[in-house]
């Protein structure tokens, strides 16, 4: 059981690390991009934020097995806030 969780957490850790590097690279490209491409890059960066947040909430915080209300609140936060930020910059 410990091994099983360690494998899941390790997968999340690798995913989180990879997505951090990817978002940093996207950020590097952003100032050079045209308007349309820049907004696509913006949404891609925010998508990495949402995926990372879901990993932290479900795996690290172990809310996947928690009551739906609490899991929903945290997942809602990490999904809606980046979308609000994206809309502010995009509109």
């Amino acid at each position: 059981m410990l091994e099983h969780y360690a494998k899941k957490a390790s997968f999340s850790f690798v995913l989180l690390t990879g997505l951090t590097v990817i978002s940093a690279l996207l950020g590097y490209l952003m100032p050079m991009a045209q308007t349309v491409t820049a907004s696509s890059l913006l949404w891609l960066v925010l998508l990495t934020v949402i995926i990372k947040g879901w990993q932290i909430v479900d795996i690290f915080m172990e809310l996947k097995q928690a009551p739906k209300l609490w899991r929903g609140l945290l997942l809602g936060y990490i999904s809606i806030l980046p979308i609000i930020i994206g809309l502010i910059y995009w509109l």
Partner: protein
Amino acid sequence: MAVNKPKEKVLPGDLAMWFFILAELTVFAILFIAFAVTGKLQPQMFSDGKATLHPIAGVINTLALITASYFVALAVSALHHGRQQKAAKLVLWSMLVACIYVVTKLWEYHALGEAGFGISTNTFYMLYFFITFFHFMHVLLGMIILAFVALKANKNGYQDNTNGFVSGAVYWHMVDLVWIILFPLVYII
């Protein structure tokens, strides 16, 4: 015939800690929205301000907090299996990695200060210093909590009830979760 009962859904840690986390997340959400709105209203000031930051330091800090959270998650798992000393050791590793964040952040503040930028320079720096320093204080508080639970676990203090340890861990993950949004907002977008 054996009937498989559905697994009971349990909230990890203390309920009070979750309410505290919700309050913290709300405050950070307001600050993030304020940063984004001000950035939208004053694009040139924010673009010039962001150009003076160090994105590599942001990446280092993100990786440090993610790694620290990973060790804490493994520590909670070890604790659930009765391996308290191992849990304490993993938390210690987590704190050591978190020190990378502390040192990098202090270096960033020092470098910006040396370059002549401070909280009163303009709205960008005011918000930058306020939000990142507010988060920095949360990291320090998280490290104090982790030190406390590690010491207790090292003395086998979580034999009957692991709620205190798990609550500390959940608080630490919240600090990480906030940085996951803060990093692209301040350094990338």
